[in-house]
């Protein structure tokens, strides 16, 4: 067992345990904190896959923005769910069965595919520079990039409009 494999297994255990706590813990604030742990674990996976830029973006976008935004909304909407009693509906058994079946199917599919045991090559030193150029080059991904920008702008305006308090109504 190499050091990378040990790091991988530790990260996998921590990430999956944190993800499990996210979906099972009754306290919503704790669920949000476990979500942060799970997202950190995913960032470590990105490092192991030598996608350092994506790991940094994961920490900034997911942990810094999305998880904190969720925590704000949990605190703003707490009155009803007092973190007591079951937080899962009566359908949780069907959900568990469906999830287990899907996991079995996915593992079977992964195991039946002929997958490479090692990468075909190393990531070039200039991979982040290449990514930056590809995102804005007309031969690369400039159209998906611009569409994503417009989507973010539309989501921003839509979120402000939906959550706006109308004083005189």
């Amino acid at each position: 067992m190499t050091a990378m494999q040990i790091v991988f297994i530790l990260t996998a255990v921590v990430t999956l345990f944190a993800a499990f706590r996210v979906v099972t813990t009754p306290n919503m604030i704790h669920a949000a904190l476990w979500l942060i742990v799970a997202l950190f674990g995913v960032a470590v996976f990105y490092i192991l896959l030598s996608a350092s830029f994506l790991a940094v973006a994961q920490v900034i976008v997911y942990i810094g923005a999305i998880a904190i935004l969720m925590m704000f909304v949990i605190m703003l909407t707490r009155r009803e769910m007092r973190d007591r009693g079951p937080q899962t509906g009566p359908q949780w058994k069907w959900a568990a069965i469906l999830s287990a079946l899907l996991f079995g199917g996915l593992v079977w599919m992964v195991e039946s595919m002929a997958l490479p045991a090692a990468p075909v090559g190393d990531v070039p030193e200039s991979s982040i520079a290449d990514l930056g150029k590809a995102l804005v080059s007309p031969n690369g991904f400039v159209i998906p990039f611009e569409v994503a920008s417009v989507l973010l702008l539309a989501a921003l305006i839509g979120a402000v409009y939906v959550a706006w308090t109308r004083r005189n109504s």
Partner: protein
Amino acid sequence: MISLDWYLIVAAALFVIGLFGVLSRKNAVAILMGVELMLNAVNINLLAFWRYRAPTEPVGMAFAIIVFAVAAAEVAVGLALFIAVYRRFNSVVADDINLMKW
């Protein structure tokens, strides 16, 4: 060296945990957290295939960045909706929000 199927199996486990959260949770914010876990699992898959199949091309990373942007937009709109729904119904329990249920 870690082989590709390890990543795929961890991503599959993360995905089904997220799916379980989406299907079983009552609180709408918790459902959104399940969706986040599922999107992260997909991103691990994208980057694992990029690393093992085409590490010299920026395609995989660009795809993952688009997924990031879509996830951020989805969370912003979803949470704004929950705030608006909470103001109207005084609840974020998915079962209570049944105004459009036929």
